């Protein structure tokens, strides 16, 4: 397939279609709106359905119903809309449905929301944070695969820049290997057989009165523990011999990568570690990358959220300092002055100067 210049929102929607997504429901909200627009246009053209939901509550509910029939389905919003969806997101995790969520955040202040969630009970879902449009295309397809493989929600953490920057990409269906049959999905055909199915978040079984939450939740915990062991992804560069290790994710990591490469060329001993999965956080990889560093600098555009995970990974082996911070445009869309290579370079240089002193 030829490469084409595409805005991030369009590329993500096309990647979802390539992955076989047949249902989408959403409610407009910047910077998620264009993603909804593309699904609304393209899904009916490809035999799917996109419903203009009346709120985020309905959007995730509709996706839930579509998923229960075995279809690949997705929803999304920005952090504000995702806040409304948390109850369903938590229960869908317990119903073990393969939901893909496009979390097009207003900046990086939704890190806690994406990785800890605001829903009830013990639940986890994979969170991918692409650095650019090409990676978003690949991770979107991976998200649908991993959602089916684990029968668990997966979210893509994007932002205003990812949604709106146009880049040259090619979109082809990626093959991740065979998946288990969806022998849990409902189509109505098992009525009266004594084996009718029930897709549910409570651990119910047909013909069995009552539930056993203790055993059910422990089984889910074991699954989430296994996901944590197997699904961590990261990108690291120039970490060998680095005295300063910069940790950044998503769009801001792209600026950090530019600045780190520039500084390396000038002889600075600085490396970059980028978690691609925000959950599971690549704990072991970061610990190894930070092993020789005298200082770990966390660059994130918020009051300090990912820094908790960095500290838990480094476990005091090196000082962990914040070099980012809140940085917003007047509209609050998360495209603040820190999204600038010079400014990011200054922050990294500041941390290097402390190191030198």
């Amino acid at each position, binding site marked *: 397939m030829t490469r084409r210049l595409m805005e991030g929102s369009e590329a993500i929607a096309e990647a979802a279609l390539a992955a076989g997504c*047949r*249902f989408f*429901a959403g409610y407009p909200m910047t910077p998620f709106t264009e993603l909804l627009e593309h699904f609304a246009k393209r899904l009916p053209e490809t035999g799917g*359905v996109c*419903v203009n*939901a*009346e*709120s985020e*509550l*309905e*959007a*995730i*509910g*509709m*996706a*839930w*119903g*579509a*998923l*229960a*029939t*075995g*279809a690949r*389905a997705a929803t999304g919003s920005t952090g504000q809309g995702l806040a409304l969806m948390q*109850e*369903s997101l938590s*229960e869908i995790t317990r*119903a073990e449905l393969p939901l893909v969520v496009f979390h097009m955040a207003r900046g990086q202040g939704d890190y806690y929301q994406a990785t800890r969630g605001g829903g009830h009970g013990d639940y986890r879902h994979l969170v991918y944070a692409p650095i650019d449009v090409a990676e978003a295309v690949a991770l979107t397809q991976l998200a649908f695969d991993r959602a089916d493989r684990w029968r668990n929600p997966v979210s893509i953490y994007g932002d205003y820049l990812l949604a709106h920057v146009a880049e040259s990409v090619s979109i082809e269906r990626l093959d991740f290997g065979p998946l288990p049959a969806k022998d849990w999905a*409902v*189509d*109505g*055909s*098992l*009525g*009266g*057989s*004594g084996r*009718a*199915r*029930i*897709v*549910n*978040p*409570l651990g*119910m*079984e*047909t*013909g*069995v*009165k*009552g539930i056993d939450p203790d055993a059910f939740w422990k089984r889910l915990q074991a699954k989430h523990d296994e996901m944590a062991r197997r699904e961590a992804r990261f990108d690291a560069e120039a970490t060998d011999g680095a005295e300063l290790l910069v940790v950044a994710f998503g769009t801001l990591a792209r600026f950090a990568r530019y600045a780190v490469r520039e500084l390396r060329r000038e002889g600075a001993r600085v490396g970059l570690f980028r978690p691609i999965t925000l959950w599971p956080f690549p704990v072991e990889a970061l610990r190894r990358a930070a092993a020789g560093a005298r200082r770990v600098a966390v660059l994130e555009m918020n009051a300090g959220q990912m820094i908790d995970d960095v500290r838990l990974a480094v476990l005091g082996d090196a000082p962990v300092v914040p070099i980012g911070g809140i940085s917003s445009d007047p509209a609050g869309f998360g495209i603040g002055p820190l999204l600038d290579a010079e400014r990011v370079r200054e922050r990294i240089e500041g941390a290097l100067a402390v190191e030198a002193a």
Partner: protein
Amino acid sequence: MRERQTGLEKPALQVGVDHDLCPGCGEPLALRMLLEAIEDVGCAQRAIGVVGIGCYTALAPLMDVDRIQALHGRAPSVATGAKRMRPDALLFTLQGDGDMVSEGLQEVIHTAARGEAITCVLLNNGVFGETGGHMTATTVLGQRTKNSLDGRDAAYHGHPILIGDLLAQLDGTAYAARASVHDAAGVAGAKRMLKRAFETQLRREGFSFVEILTMCPTGWFVGTAEGPGYLDRVLGSVHVTGELKREGRFVPTASLRARAAQPGGD
């Protein structure tokens, strides 16, 4: 004393015959009518039920119909997503008044307005039965509940919502009706209405809705034997039974007719 046959034979779409709900509860009766209606319209092998959260959730494992268990209030959206992916399936929701009318009111209204080809079934007993008898959006004025001890007071607690009447007014609604299982005729009427609602869905005419008034003596703090009478007298006089809309045509609502007949009504 004459021996009576009372539902010892289970419906074909039910697993097992017993349930754990309270004596005198109207919900198992409504469920039986629902399961029989699915059979009667020939949809046993193509029905998908979306169950809300309430006492009736305990009945979900006993249904031998493909099901999706939804969150409190959210069943209409879940049914929407399933129907859009399985247009040939018979999609119905099973919800209580707390679920549908209190927590999830916008869900059922939007789903009706969209003309979604699903059937929403409301079991309305005017209380949160599962929590032990608390006020819902359909609790009638004067009704005593655990959080309206002196009776629902319009000035303090607001007015009940007559959800069937409200949904009947939406253009997307093709069929709307209200039944009551307080006596044999009401039980038979519930099944007839459920069948008509399902037939409406199968003809793809739009959204269909059946409200079934059910006994909850536990949540009403009355004796088991008093349940049917209380339902008919207290809830039935406000949530008046009858068909509200059929084949997309608005029927002057039973409740409005009843109100107009009252002294001072217009």
